[in-house]
């Protein structure tokens, strides 16, 4: 029973079936979605950690993989993320109480001077779906805000995004400031104009060419 529910939940997230009212996918029309199945699973006594690890993370991992292989594109990935969020809403009390342990905290923001948020939001959702607590600082994030949030969340990993050649250069002072107060903090950077060479040059620990590459890096450092 519990395995069946988790498989069903995983399928809902993978294909973007948010709740019973969602008409998509057509073959699941009228059936329970991620919202109702998560509630049902908790009522059936399935551990919230099993829901996270054996349904949500599994599903989002498949979604990330399919995106990397160009089998799906951003709208499908965002629909899956929306279904995941509907499920995750039921798990939030268990995260708060400590009943469910996540892999760690991930602080994410778009570097100062840059107002782009699509890539940052997309990666943040994939990281949450990979089992991390995400602290989203938004766009145009100043150095001081990154530093302050790192100080408030020891052990957190930091992700910095930039979409412009004129703002990617702002990443280095952010990295320098974080490393100055917390040399062990791991930092990953991403964004269209970046490369792994550039990431190395500015002192980042990781570079994500696409969301899945970033998730793989995060899993590696948290293992």
């Amino acid at each position, binding site marked *: 029973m519990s395995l069946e529910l988790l498989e069903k939940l995983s399928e809902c997230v993978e294909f973007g079936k948010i709740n019973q009212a*969602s008409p998509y996918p057509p073959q699941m029309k009228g059936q329970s979605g991620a919202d109702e199945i998560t509630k049902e699973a908790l009522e059936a006594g399935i551990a919230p950690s099993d829901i996270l690890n054996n349904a949500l993370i599994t599903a989002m991992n498949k979604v990330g993989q399919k995106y990397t292989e160009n089998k799906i594109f951003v*709208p499908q990935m*965002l629909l899956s993320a929306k279904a995941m969020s509907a499920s995750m809403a039921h798990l939030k009390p268990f995260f708060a109480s400590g009943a469910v342990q996540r892999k760690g905290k991930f602080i994410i923001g778009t570097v100062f*001077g840059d107002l782009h948020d699509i890539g940052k939001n997309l990666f943040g959702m994939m990281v949450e779906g990979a089992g991390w607590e995400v602290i989203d600082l938004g766009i145009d994030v100043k150095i001081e805000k990154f530093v302050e949030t790192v100080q408030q969340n020891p052990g957190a990993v930091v992700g910095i995004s930039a979409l412009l*050649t004129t703002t990617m250069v702002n990443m280095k002072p952010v990295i320098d400031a974080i490393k100055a107060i917390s040399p062990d903090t791991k930092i990953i950077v991403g964004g269209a104009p970046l490369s792994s060479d550039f990431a190395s040059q500015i002192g980042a620990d990781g570079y994500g060419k696409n969301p899945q590459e970033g998730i793989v890096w995060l899993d590696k450092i948290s293992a």
Partner: protein
Amino acid sequence: MNDFCAYSFSFGEVAPTIDEVLDFLQSSDLEEEHPAVTFVRDTLNELNFDTAIRGGYVLKDINFPDPKTGLLQVDNMTLNLGRQVCGYIKEANQAAFFLCTAGEGFTQMANRLNEQGDIMEAYIMDAIGSLTVEKAMDKIQGALKTQVGKNGLKISNRYSPGYCNWPLSDQKTLFDLIGENTTGISLTDSCLMIPRKSVSGVIGIGQELKHHDYGCAICNNATCIYRKIIARTESHDL
């Protein structure tokens, strides 16, 4: 202001089609029932802006761009177009320096959708804004082609700072060159245009100008909007 040839459009005049939006989203193969498809369809049917979409250009005589240095001298200013763009317009002896904006509406709507958790819809709204401003520029570019064609002149593709190796930092010089205009677009310190759904750039004009395709095959910017809309633009034969 007098030199700026201004255009204004309603959303209906420059709205992308459903197929164009789905192509842009790489979602042409999605089922009719997919929420992305229904959202695109409903949005394009219902969207009704009362703010105008504005654009235009100034025409300037130019000294022939130098593909060796990548520099272009205009009105005692130097644009660092880069060797690639200079090569594309090297036969031009005149150029249209353009601006166009779809206004703040798309970004505001996308932000609202994001805040209420409708992340896919926010992404699509942002994409519709990007396509709308490009469609408005298609119209302006088409009008320019007709106008200069009467004098036996041809136009190039359009090129923008941040693309085809034209440094984004050149926006400041480009805005200085265009001067006062009706679009209301401003630049941040990092050369980001506000409203965000705006475009700027250059179109070469000349009698001997040859058409050059965009150099997407030799560029590694996978997220470039021109790579995504190139098929549509070329099919318009601008």
